[in-house]
C-alpha cells in the first residue's frame, strides 16, 4: 500500500472535515462513514478531491461504504483505479 496516498487522504480529511482535530485521532482504520465523518456532501467533496488529485474516475456504485469507510479502504480504491 502506498503510504503517500494514505497520508494525502488523511491530511485532506483532517483539513476539510475535522478542523481542529488532533492528527493522531484519525487512524487508517477510523470509521468515516459509520462514524459520521463522511455525510452526503462530505462524500461528494471527497470523491471530487480523489478524482481530481489522482486523475481517476469512480463508477457510481463505487462511492460506497465498503470503499470509503476508512482511509485504508479509500487508499486501496485509489490504488486499484490508478492501476
Amino acid at each position, binding site marked *: 500500500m502506498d503510504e503517500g496516498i494514505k497520508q494525502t487522504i488523511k491530511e485532506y480529511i483532517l483539513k476539510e472535515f475535522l478542523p481542529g482535530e488532533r492528527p493522531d485521532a484519525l487512524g487508517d482504520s477510523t470509521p468515516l462513514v459509520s462514524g459520521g465523518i463522511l455525510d*452526503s456532501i462530505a*462524500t461528494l467533496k471527497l470523491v471530487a478531491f480523489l478524482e481530481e488529485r489522482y486523475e481517476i474516475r469512480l463508477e457510481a*456504485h463505487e*462511492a460506497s461504504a465498503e470503499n*470509503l469507510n476508512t482511509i485504508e479502504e479509500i487508499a486501496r480504491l485509489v490504488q486499484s483505479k490508478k492501476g
Partner: protein
Amino acid sequence: MNFSLTEEQKTLRESIVRFARNELNEDVVERDRTQTFRRDLWTKCGEMGILGLPIPEEYGGSGLDVLSTAIALEALGYGCSDAGFVFSISAHLLPCVVPIGTFGTEEQKKRLLPDLCGGKRIAANAMTEPGTGSDAFAMKTRAVRDGRGFRLAGTKMFCSNGPIADLAVVFAVTDPEKGYHGGITTFLVEKETEGFRASQKFEKMGLRTSPIGELVLENAFVSEDAVLGGVGGGATVFAHSMDWERILLFATHVGTMERLLEKAVEYARIRTQFGQPIGKFQGVSHKIADMKVRLEAARLLVYRSAWKLGERKSVSMDASITKLFVSESLLETALDTVQVLGGYGFMTEYEVERALRDAIGSTIYSGTSEMQRNIIARWLGL
C-alpha cells in the same frame, strides 16, 4: 477567456427561438387555464432534436456539448412562453435522459434513448416521497432482490411528467444499513410494468401545463437490466442528475428573464403617464435596470457552470450557486415585470401574471433556496 458564441451556437440559438415562437406558443393562456399538456408539440420538439440535445447522435440525440445545450435551452426559455411545457422538457431531459446516457449500459442506451430523444416516449424522475423532500435520502421506497431482479414498493410524490410518463427513473433503498453510501439504487421502470401506476394528479399554482403526480409501486418486479449505474450507485446518479438540472434547467430561466425584460422595456417606453413614458420615471427605470443586471449575471453563471460541467470537473457547488441565483433572480424579475405593467400586468391576457406564478416554484424544485445555501456553506467548510 473568450465570451463570444461560435457561429454554430448563434445559429442554434436562432433556430430554436424561431421554432419555439412559430410552433409552441399557440393558446398558452388557455392551456394554462385547463392544465393541458400538448403531446403534438412534444413530438415536434423530438423532431427538432430538443429532447436529446446532449445525447450522442448514435443514440438519437443531437450530440451537443454541455455549453451549447445550455444555449439551446436558454433559447427555448426565451422563445417559448409556455414555461410549463419547457419545464416538462427539462424534467424529461436532465434527470432522466442525461443519466441514462451517462450511466446506462450499451443495451439500455440503445433500447431507450432513441424513443426518448425522438419524442415517442416521455420520462419522469421519481425521487421525492410524501415524507421526504429536502431530506431525499430518507426515502422509504424499498427494492428487494427477487431471483434475477428486484421488487419495488413505495410511493413517489410530485413527479413532474408522472401522469404522462412512459418510463420512470426511480430511486429506491436496496440496503437500508448502507443508506446514502451504497444503499440506494436507481431503476428504470417502464409504464407497462405490473404493479407500477400513476396515481393522483395534482393541480398547482404555476407550470400548470406540466403534469405532475404521484407514482405508486406495489411490489413491481423489474429485472436486473433495469438497474441504472449499478446496485448501490443511486447517490452518485442522483448527484449527477442534480448537477445537470441545477445548471441546465435554469438556463431556460435565463431565456425567460430576457423575454420578461424585453416586455417590461417595451411597455415602459410606450405607456405614458403624467405626459411622459413611465420608463422616464426613475422608480420604473431602476427596476428595469436591475432586471438587466440580474439577467447578465445569471447568464454568466449558467454558461460558466455549463462549461465546467462539460470539462468533467466537480460542479456541485457551482450548480447550487447557479440554481440559487437564477431562481431568485427569475422570481424578482417576474414580480417586477408585473409591477411595471401595473394593472395590465395583473390581467391574465398580458401573460406576465402567469410568468410570476410559473416562477414561484423555481426556488423550491431541484432543492430549495435554503438547501442550496446549506450546500454552498458545507462546500466552504462550514
